[in-house]
């Protein structure tokens, strides 16, 4: 989230799209309801189904699963053609004024950008997706009037002109009037004193074009001047209690803690790596905060390797593993989830640790996951309950793939783990609030907290290396395992380390005679970290969370003098306890708020007051530092110069399995040109003639993922798997509610009760009648009551978005029959 849950109450318009907050985040959704109640805010819901959020909406539009980009394109086009954009904001805070490099082009017939290699079927040259750079200064050229045909704004207008209401209707299946009505409400926030927010979740991220989809939403919000405003922003709701903290803390193959890209094998020298993570400024005067990343990398190494990270060994640059290069030049190996399971299936892996994960259920394509796990030599699962993954070798699960337990040679350890109530520590919610929780009781029986499991495994391996030696034992032995109780590190100590402290006295950068942070003191702010090895910090983003003032994640001051739901002294909000990100945009060029009733920050002549500014606190507005301090441009990117693999703009591409050819370019590229299916025997994609129905998967409010199937109360609320089927389709197939139906995709099939409903309507897509059905996840083989193995992911495929590598759970093809 750019903003926060409590901040949503400040919105005038809430667009819930690609998410079903009332269903999946009911308590967070209360702020949307507050906005409705207290500000008469309008709630617009765009979704494949009329669902719980739609039940309280002011405008609901049904679209086909997988057509969200077209709808957003329609909204962008509406804003641009009806001149419903906040022009001053766009000029100040986006790259709309930037000139684009000569050579950049988009072919409307093929649906491809410049740089496409027809033979290799790939973008081999992305060099034209760039700004027009002044060779002398290295800065991008701009046209403040936005009239230059090569400026981002003009190119954008032209690009999205194709997303007419008629075209959107033909792609999404909604009426043109529906689009226009929704657009009228959503774009009403273009006025400086009107703010709209977007709440999205996995309905946007589960596509083969998910990153671009979110880019489109960001473009819309930037055009309307909603980013950085209280009540605005682009808010990812996120699905797990600490999925935010997990990504913050580096649980991803491609970055280390704090979203710093992982070191690559071809970065031979430490300097190469640091240069790769520290971009050069693209405009004069910008802050370009990422230039500080050397401090954070070195501090992170110091946290890892302690005394063994020295200036001489580049602070342990070679102790840390590097991402190996890939087969194709200029690429790197991909170990993201779906790729990991593909590699596992190909026999490239020996072992897997799973801490509370259940890939047989939660990963794409359950049968492929089971086949992949069967190739492992060993599997370690730490869990609260027996899961389908832990027992994937049992006959109960294995029948899905037709195997026998004796053929599965995987050695499996199922370790009983403590749950949330049985240990302390902090969770970071989607509003980036890091909040401490306390232990209420001991785990049952022999169950152990995860820190003990991790520590004991690591220390045992270290012991083995100490005793018998082995391959490259250096990092194992060098790791700084300083905890008072090494076998069971106290999480308070870990929290201290994540924030970091000064190892030796840290001198003030302006006045080197003044000690900024005393040796042994906790770091208080980002720039307390040093690249010279005098500080350590496990995760720079969390600096400020555990300072000399104590563990700030434990703060419980509910005061909100701002009246904007900021709660600045409740827990700790990364970054730097800033509640609204990009809040410099909430004020105009002179530093005065666009809307005085919703002032997040304000220039008082000497400094910025209000929320923690997302800006240099004492840099006057006229200095023009750039509101987006993390971007080397200093502004937000409407046009993305090369960071994404499928183009600088968001174009509508059909899902990998689609009932129609892309109506935008029927003779050109239909699906995402950069998304590539895997090649194993499991990875089949269906064709619309055999699988004519669009299917989507989702959660229900009564269950949490695959956990609550162990809880009798939750099972009572939603006892069994079902398939939501439009009335018309059911009539066509002679299906009645509660009869069993079989849903089959090219990957497998699944049986469940039919829920015949008026809440999903048939659609006309590109002149063709298309039905869509929906299936909730949540059930499996293990749990309270009778579980029948109705795992929705038995029918999903594992093609992933080429930027984020998230699988396409929404909008795939199936056929439906009576069971």
């Amino acid at each position, binding site marked *: 989230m750019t903003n926060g849950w409590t901040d949503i109450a400040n919105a005038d318009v809430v667009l819930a799209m690609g998410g079903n907050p009332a269903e999946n985040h009911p308590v967070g959704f209360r702020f949307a309801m507050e906005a409705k109640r207290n500000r008469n805010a309008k709630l617009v819901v765009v979704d494949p189904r009329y669902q719980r959020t*739609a039940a309280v909406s002011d405008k609901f539009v049904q679209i086909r699963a997988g057509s969200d980009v077209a709808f957003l394109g329609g909204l962008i086009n509406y804003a641009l053609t009806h001149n419903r954009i906040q022009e001053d904001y766009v000029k100040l805070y986006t790259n709309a004024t930037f000139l684009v490099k000569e050579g950049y082009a988009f072919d409307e017939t093929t649906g491809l950008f410049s740089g496409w290699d027809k033979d290799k079927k790939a973008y081999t040259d992305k060099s034209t997706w760039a700004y027009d750079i002044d060779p002398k200064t290295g800065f991008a050229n701009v046209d403040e009037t936005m009239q230059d045909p090569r400026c981002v704004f003009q190119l954008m207008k032209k690009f999205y002109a194709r997303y007419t209401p008629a075209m959107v209707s033909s792609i999404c299946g909604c009426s043109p009037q529906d689009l226009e009505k929704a657009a009228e409400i959503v774009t009403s926030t273009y006025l400086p004193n009107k703010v709209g927010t977007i709440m999205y979740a996995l309905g946007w991220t589960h596509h083969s074009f998910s990153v671009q989809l979110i880019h489109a939403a960001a473009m819309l919000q930037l055009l309307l001047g909603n980013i950085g405003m209280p009540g605005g922003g682009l808010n990812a709701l996120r699905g797990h209690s600490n999925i935010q903290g997990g990504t913050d803390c580096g649980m991803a193959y491609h970055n280390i803690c704090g979203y710093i890209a992982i070191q690559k094998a071809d970065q031979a020298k430490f300097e190469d790596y640091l240069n790769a993570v520290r971009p050069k400024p693209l405009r004069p005067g910008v802050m370009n905060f990422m230039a500080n990343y050397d401090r954070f990398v070195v501090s992170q190494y110091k946290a890892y390797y302690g005394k063994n990270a020295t200036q001489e060994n580049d602070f342990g640059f070679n102790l840390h593993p590097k991402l190996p290069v890939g087969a194709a030049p200029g690429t790197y190996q991909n170990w993201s989830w779906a790729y990991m399971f593909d590699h596992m299936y190909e026999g490239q892996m020996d072992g897997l640790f799973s801490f509370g994960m259940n890939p047989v259920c939660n990963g794409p394509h359950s049968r492929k996951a089971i086949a992949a796990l069967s190739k492992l030599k060993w599997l370690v699962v730490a869990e609260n309950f027996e899961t389908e993954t832990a027992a994937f070798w049992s006959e109960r699960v294995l029948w899905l793939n037709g195997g026998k337990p004796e053929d599965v040679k995987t050695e499996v350890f199922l370790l009983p783990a403590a749950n949330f109530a049985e240990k302390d520590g902090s969770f970071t919610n989607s509003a980036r609030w890091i909040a401490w929780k306390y232990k209420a009781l001991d785990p049952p029986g022999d169950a152990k907290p995860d820190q003990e499991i991790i520590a004991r495994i690591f220390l045992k391996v270290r012991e083995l290396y100490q005793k018998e030696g082995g391959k490259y034992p250096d990092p194992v032995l060098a790791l700084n395992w300083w905890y008072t109780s090494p076998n069971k590190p106290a999480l308070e100590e870990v929290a201290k380390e994540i924030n970091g402290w000064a190892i030796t006295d840290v001198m003030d950068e302006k006045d080197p005679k003044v000690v900024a942070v005393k040796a042994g003191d906790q770091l208080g702010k980002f720039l307390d970290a040093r690249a010279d090895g005098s500080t350590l910090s496990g995760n720079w983003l969390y600096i400020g969370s555990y300072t000399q003032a104590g563990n700030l994640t434990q703060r419980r001051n509910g005061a909100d003098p701002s009246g904007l739901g900021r709660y600045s002294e409740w827990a700790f909000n990364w970054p730097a306890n800033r509640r609204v990100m990009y809040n410099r945009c909430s004020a105009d060029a002179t530093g005065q708020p666009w809307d005085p009733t919703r002032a997040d920050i304000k220039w008082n002549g000497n400094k910025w007051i209000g929320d923690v500014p997302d800006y240099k606190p004492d840099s006057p507005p006229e200095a023009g530092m750039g509101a987006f301090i993390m971007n080397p441009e200093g502004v937000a990117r409407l046009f993305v110069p090369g960071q994404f693999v499928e183009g600088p703009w968001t174009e509508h591409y059909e899902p990998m399995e689609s009932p129609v050819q892309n109506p935008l370019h029927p003779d050109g590229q239909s699906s995402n040109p950069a998304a590539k299916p895997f090649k194993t025997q499991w990875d089949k994609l269906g064709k619309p003639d055999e699988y004519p129905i669009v299917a989507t998967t989702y959660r229900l409010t009564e269950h949490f993922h695959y956990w609550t199937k162990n809880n009798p*109360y939750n099972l009572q609320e939603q006892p069994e798997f079902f398939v939501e089927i439009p009335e018309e389709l059911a009539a066509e197939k002679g299906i009645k509610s509660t009869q069993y139906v079989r849903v089959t995709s090219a990957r497998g099939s699944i049986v469940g*009760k039919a829920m015949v409903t008026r809440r999903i309507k048939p659609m006309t897509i590109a002149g063709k009648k298309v039905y869509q059905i929906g299936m909730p996840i949540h059930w499996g083989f293990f749990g309270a009551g009778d579980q029948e193995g109705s795992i929705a992911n038995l029918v999903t495929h594992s093609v992933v978005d080429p930027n984020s590598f998230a699988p396409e759970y929404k909008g795939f093809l199936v056929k439906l029959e009576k069971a």
Partner: protein
Amino acid sequence: MAGKVLEIRAMSASSTPAPGIRSAPVVAKLIDTSACIGCKACEVACQEWNDLPPETTVQIGTYQTMPDTTPSFWNLIKFNEHETDDGAFHWLLRKDQCMHCADPGCLKACPAPGAIVQYNNGIVDFQQDNCIGCGYCIAGCPFNVPKMSRQTKKVYKCTLCVDRVSVGLEPACIKACPTNCLTFGTKEVLLQKAKSRVAQLQTAGFLDAAVYDPPGVSGTGVVSILAFGKNPEAYGLPKDPSVSFAVEIWKGPLKWIGNIAIVGGIIGTFVHYLRFGPKHVPEDDKAKQADAGR
């Protein structure tokens, strides 16, 4: 201890007036159905707080947990689909539970002294210890609320968490509700809130929006805001509920007529005896004579 806090305003089958004389603010629950998202937090909050066993359910072709409330499930969100004349689709979500009527039909119909009580704060509570399981309250209720347990042969329903309310806490469902669809407070304050919310809904285009506080039962302790206020049936609510005529007659005039008749009958026979005495059978021979005489 808690019992001392709440006095009794009315009691089932009471031969004397209920003892409570202290006034207490009448508490109420406001259900803004237009803000209900059907998340069912209230359903399980109720069960969890009251330690009620989970029910065994099956998928019945809707999002609704089960067709109806049960003895161990006192609070059910009903999912009603509604299409307005202009073709707009609405999912009408309503919390089905005891309405805590000011004039409770259940209490009126109940023959067991003290099995149903109404506290001075308006809460209508079933005291299972005194319940005899006759099911008359089921007949007395215009909202189909009381449910009899097959095991215990006692009737159960929402208590408005009287155990919480009596120590100054809000009911469990109220606390759980994420969207502020449920509000707890004194009825007076809640009715004001309801009024302004109805006005807001009317401005938003729901011209029929209204407060559902049926006068037929002298108002309820559970007040609902309905966007389609002219059509409570669309929510599964009776249009103009009242304690049934049959119950009113039965527990009203019929009771007095019956009592008078019974007592009158006994007195009548007694008076008859005093006045006329028994019949004497003539001696056999006299009868024979009489026979012969004919």
